[in-house]
């Protein structure tokens, strides 16, 4: 009985990091990475055919030449809960990729992308009785800050047997950390002692992925991809504080290029996020989720003798971690452009996404994500 009471007490204890301050930042964070600005501009529809995106290793073979790619994606987010609201700006660098063709058939790629981003800060003011239980009521500010992310570092190899068929495999290392600080701030430093705690949770795990692309004709193509997750371990210092399985992932895509200068793509993916539930120590629930997107990419006008590519798309997905036991769904609409630079030795991609997130409650969240991608072929 006593053990049961202790277990109940531990389960109800608050812990650092529970105050997330946004629907998209529940649990281990927001899955922001893996897609290039090009893929984001098409609502992720083209992601499985994009050599810069990390959704499948097979697409690496279509890169054409050695490439380095770097992406910056700030998000401007507003959260509304009844009459209360908050606006934040999060600067992310979600993707860096290096691709190296090794002969006409083989391509090697090394990349790092943000898997789950958990950058948040909240200040909660609480009225507490500190001292005399009748007269000493003071406002205590609880400041909670978490910075950091779990990143997906992938080494992948792709083989193109023919223009119609590509296949690839990848090995993933999921590494990263969350730096957490928690302070209780009191108003009068001569009477009260403000407290501060800091900690760092580091993560490490492995996964493997495989993918294939099939182009039966010049107007249509299909892609399949899958990733099998291994164990993900969370540690504070040398102490393991939780383990879970990295979510299995699979996706299927189709692209149609029957209209000259236009490519229409669609993609559906499934992530078994619930496998991360065992890592959570609170009531945050992880849900298996679908991620679907459709988009179009079309040749646009020429500006300064450069052919501009125009993109648009929509994306519907469920985020990994729920709020109050409810799934958090995200609907995004995106647009973007792509432009070659310096005689096609570099290119610039830009995408803007407008996302609405809801969780079946009175809380609503909107995010505007800008993505700037620069690809250089040395």
């Amino acid at each position, binding site marked *: 009985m006593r053990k049961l009471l202790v277990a109940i007490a531990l389960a109800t*204890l*608050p*812990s*650092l*990091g*529970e*105050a997330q*301050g*946004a629907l998209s930042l529940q649990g*281990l964070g927001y899955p922001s990475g893996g897609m290039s600005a090009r893929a984001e501009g098409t609502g992720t529809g083209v992601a499985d055919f994009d050599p810069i995106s990390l959704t499948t290793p097979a697409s690496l073979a279509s890169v054409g030449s050695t490439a380095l790619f770097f992406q*910056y994606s*700030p998000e401007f987010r507003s*959260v509304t*809960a*009844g009459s*209360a609201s*908050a*606006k*934040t*700006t*999060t*600067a992310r660098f979600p993707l860096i990729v290096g691709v190296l063709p090794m002969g006409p058939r083989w391509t090697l790629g090394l990349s790092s992308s943000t898997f789950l981003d958990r*950058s*948040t*800060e*909240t*200040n*909660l003011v*609480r009225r507490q009785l*500190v*001292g*005399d*239980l009748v007269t000493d009521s003071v406002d*205590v500010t*609880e400041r*909670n*800050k978490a910075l950091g992310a779990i990143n997906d570092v992938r080494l992948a190899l792709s083989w193109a047997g023919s223009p119609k068929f590509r296949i690839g495999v990848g090995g993933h290392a999921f590494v990263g950390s969350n730096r*957490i600080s*928690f302070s*209780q701030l009191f108003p009068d430093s001569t*009477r*009260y*002692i403000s*407290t501060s*705690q800091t900690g760092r*949770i580091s993560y490490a795990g492995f996964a493997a992925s495989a993918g294939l692309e099939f182009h039966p004709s010049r107007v249509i193509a299909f892609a399949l991809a899958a990733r099998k997750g291994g164990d993900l371990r969370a540690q504070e210092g040398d102490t393991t*504080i*939780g383990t879970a399985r990295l979510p299995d992932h699979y996706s299927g895509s189709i692209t149609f290029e029957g209209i000259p200068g236009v490519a229409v793509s669609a993609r559906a993916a499934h992530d078994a996020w619930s496998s991360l539930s065992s*890592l*959570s*120590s*609170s009531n*945050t629930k992880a849900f298996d989720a679908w991620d679907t997107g459709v988009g179009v990419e079309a040749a646009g*006008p*020429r*500006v*300064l003798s450069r052919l501009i590519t125009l993109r648009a798309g929509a994306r519907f997905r469920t985020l990994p971690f729920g709020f109050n036991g409810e799934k958090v769904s995200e609907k995004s609409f995106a647009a973007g452009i792509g432009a070659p630079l310096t005689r096609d030795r570099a290119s610039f991609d*830009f995408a803007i996404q407008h996302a609405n997130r809801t969780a079946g409650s009175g*809380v609503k969240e909107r995010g505007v994500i*800008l993505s700037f991608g620069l690809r250089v072929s040395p």
Partner: protein
Amino acid sequence: MKLSSLLLRSFATAVLFITVSSCSEDLDSSGVCAVLCPPIGGEVQNITVDAVSFDTTVQSLSGLGAETGLLLASRGDSLDTRVVIRFDSIVSRFTPVGDTAQDIKTVDSAYIQLRLDTLAIKGDGPFTIEAYDVDTTANDTSTVAVAALFRPDRFISSQDFARTDLHDTTKYYISNAVVLAKLQGGAQLRVGLRVTGATSAQIPIFSGESGRTPLLFFRATPDTVTKPLVVVPFSRTPTTDAIVAAHLTDYTVVVKGPPPAPAGVLAVGGLPTRRTYMRFVIPSSIIDSSTIVRATLLLNQISNPALDPTDTVLIVPQLVTAGRAVTDPVKAAQIIADLSGDTVRVVPGNSGLTNVELARALIAWHLQPPDSLPRAIVLKTVIEGISISPLEIRFSPIEDVVAALRPRLRISYTSRVPLRIP
């Protein structure tokens, strides 16, 4: 300019602007915390414990004359303090304007310039300040010996002051003949000042330690073209300790102080100045394992109506840093460090609960073991060592027969929040 070029430049400018503006993160989403942020820190726990294991009143050993103030007071049967200023070396030669150095043969307009703390003067006046020759071959720091020298055959001079005559800088004229005799004889001039009057008088004077030292002025010639001579206080004794001698250039003699607190009662302040020493025993489950956010020493103040019962006295807790080797509380109470804590304002005539904030002491005790940092504090007045005040604050000790009146410690703490995955 071509339209395409204009579009490209506009787009590049917009990208640059957005990039720069988004570089500074603003992650604070506190606005919706009422809904999205569950409390993390848990509730603050408050407990009150009988943590004081030992308490006593000890004398402050700051040293005679070490204060930056002197107190000249006469308050009936309650208080009689006098001031001694030592001019153990007086110049005996001077140089008139347009002439050569020569021996001083006359003294004119001799006065001691006193710097007064006029805001702290008590009494409406008029006041009479008498000067006596307190030079002696007896123990020259003995209160009894020095007080005995304030007698008619030692009388030097007297001067009456209305309250309005007492300014920040006040001239106290003394006998020219006495000054001349002392300088010609190569003797020490040690002036003892006493105030008398029909009503109570209490006149604070700045001492040499404050930088506003009393000075002796006199003219060696009636010729006003020649500037007056200035003599700075100086003490030849004790010959073995220059620092103590420097303190003794001017000091206060407490002939009669207010009645001390009854035995067993804790006292802070008064004349001579005293401190309260307290040692604590705090449960290790609190001091070692919890996060202390507040600690308050709850004291029961006992009314002391003897002198100025409605005046305000500032008390400050200090951390005792004397190590294990110092077992005598009197000595341990002199080895202290500032806590940067809250100053307590108390009124001597009041009684009842007085709170002294001690959170910073507990933080220090949490960081260091009792062997190196004893769990002890001292309560002292803020002005101790700075000025002299007869006001004394009294508190109930742990031996008080009424348990509720004994010193107690109220501790507010939180448990350490576990670092876990959300």
